[in-house]
């Protein structure tokens, strides 16, 4: 039902600016998704094998040029989208499925438990996210799975704080009081009365935190905590291209970094647009 609401909101409500943002964000994200799913069909060359001279400038044969080992950068970017999307989506789903229930329970029951959890979450939130992720990734060792763990830990407080706040304001509303008065159980109130009302918040927080997680993933990858050669990953490509920058080989870093920005921008536009549609009046 919520999904249908979401769709009607996007397509019918004459909130021109918010809608424009959501639509262009969705377009970017869909293009990258198609790239990732159909990578073998789209990529002209094998991303891990040499397919031309080394450091060839962009041409019709190699749209984005070749890297220091003669591999086609366009193909590496297409395959690289798989790692980014996989890491970021799994991490965000994990943090969401931890952060949302804890936020709901903490906000609903309140008391000492709530204060203790809030203090912990606030401290984590205050700590620079990338440094926290680096610490976790360094202890666990570089790998895709460990990167998912590191990134998911970092974004739990984001969900927790938003959901707790929403739950706090919803639990004093009349319809919740009414449910309590007719003897509904706590689990039922949380699941049937409060949760449906925070779904839109979850969707907005998800898009915005994915936008941020993409940058964290790229950062970790750039620093060498996610993949090792020859696996393509956008952030990692930048660290490979960095030594060739002073000699003027701009194409090794320009395209992968541009993709990081575009994908992050796509999710940010979806999140910002949705929050504008759902909270009108905030925008003037």
């Amino acid at each position: 039902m919520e999904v249908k609401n979401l769709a009607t909101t996007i397509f019918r409500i004459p909130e021109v600016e918010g809608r424009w943002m959501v639509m262009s964000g969705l377009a970017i994200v869909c293009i990258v998704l198609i790239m990732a799913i159909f990578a073998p069909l789209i990529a002209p060359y094998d991303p891990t094998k040499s397919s031309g001279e080394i450091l060839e400038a962009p041409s019709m044969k190699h749209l984005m040029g070749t890297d220091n080992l003669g591999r086609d950068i366009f193909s590496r970017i297409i395959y690289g989208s798989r790692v980014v999307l996989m890491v970021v989506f799994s991490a965000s789903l994990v943090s969401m499925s931890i952060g949302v229930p804890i936020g709901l329970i903490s906000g609903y029951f309140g008391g000492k438990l709530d204060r203790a959890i809030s203090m912990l979450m606030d401290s984590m939130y205050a700590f620079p996210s990338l440094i926290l992720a680096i610490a976790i990734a360094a202890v666990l060792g570089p790998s895709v799975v460990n990167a998912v763990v590191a990134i998911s830990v970092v974004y739990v407080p984001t969900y927790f704080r938003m959901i707790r706040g929403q739950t706090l304001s919803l639990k004093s509303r009349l319809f919740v009081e009414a449910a309590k008065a007719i003897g509904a159980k706590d689990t039922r109130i949380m699941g049937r009365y409060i949760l449906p009302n925070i779904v839109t918040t979850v969707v907005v927080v998800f898009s915005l935190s994915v936008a941020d997680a993409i940058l964290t993933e790229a950062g970790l990858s750039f620093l060498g905590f996610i993949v090792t050669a020859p696996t393509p990953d956008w952030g990692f490509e930048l660290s490979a291209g960095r030594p060739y920058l002073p000699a003027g080989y701009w194409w090794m870093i320009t395209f992968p970094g541009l993709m990081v920005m575009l994908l992050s921008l796509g999710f940010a536009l979806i999140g910002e647009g949705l929050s504008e549609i759902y909270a009108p009046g905030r925008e003037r």
Partner: protein
Amino acid sequence: MASLKAYIVTRALLVIPTILILLTLVFFILRILPGDPIAAMVGQKVPPEVVEKLREEAGLNKPLLIQYFEYLFNIARGDFGKSMIWGKRPVIDEIMIRFPATLELTIFGFALSVLIGVITGAIAAFRRGSKVDASMRIYSIVAYTLFIPWFGMLLQMIFGVYFRLLPIGGRITPGSEPNTMTSLYVLDSILTLNFNALADSLSHIFLPALTLGIVLSGAYTRLLRNNLIDVLSQDFIVAYRARGVKERKVVKHAMKNAFIPVITLMGLQFAILLAGAVLTETTFSWPGMGTFLLERIQYRDYTSVQGAIVFYALFVALISLVVDIVYALLDPRIRY
């Protein structure tokens, strides 16, 4: 004023639990997470005796609870342990060599982000609804999604490689360091009236600080725009204008009122600033805390890694205290 003092004291005491939680979190991540930090950092190729010796050196062979209290006690004494490589120097000494570089970079990055954000936000607000306003709104989102190493390298490519105007890495040309007092090269150069060093250090800090500044400015752009639009529609501004007060004065009053939430944002942005500094330092070979942390992770220097992260935690707690106190000084409504 008595209540202000009381507030500051209470707020300062509240730093203790915050620091305790952060330190416990760091301890938890480094010791209790599945896996042995030393084994994970050293890799599989090292014989078990060596791993055991390293564990002993780092104090990791004792019971966890004892480790925890030793860890807290040592930090309280300012003892961050000894580095596990080379001269086995005290970690705190190494951090003190690297920290000023990060501090300098973050101060400049921060100043630029506020400056750029306030200017763009004010322009957007005063030309509300225009094309300029719309493009500033897009700017505020795009700036945030810029990937720091990428944006930094683009600037390096344009200003360093193509136009050859600015250096693309390092803090200063080796050999031209000013006589140091604060280890902040720009400040030292000014204090010692060493203008060569001043020009040199400014040319080195410009690109990394601009990278950080632009990426962080988007949030200020948006916040200031929305606040300013709010303030501009309030009665006192309408009254000013009705009385024929000069537009420049009106702007000044409006800006003053719109600025208070910006200070809150400065505090919130601080964590992002530090995280961004890690990537900026790596991109620009800036010898600060971020490059220190990453270098020591590579060298498997466990005590230094722990020290660096603990130092970040203490720094974060301290800054949040300072921000709250400054905020209380500026806004008399905030008191306990």
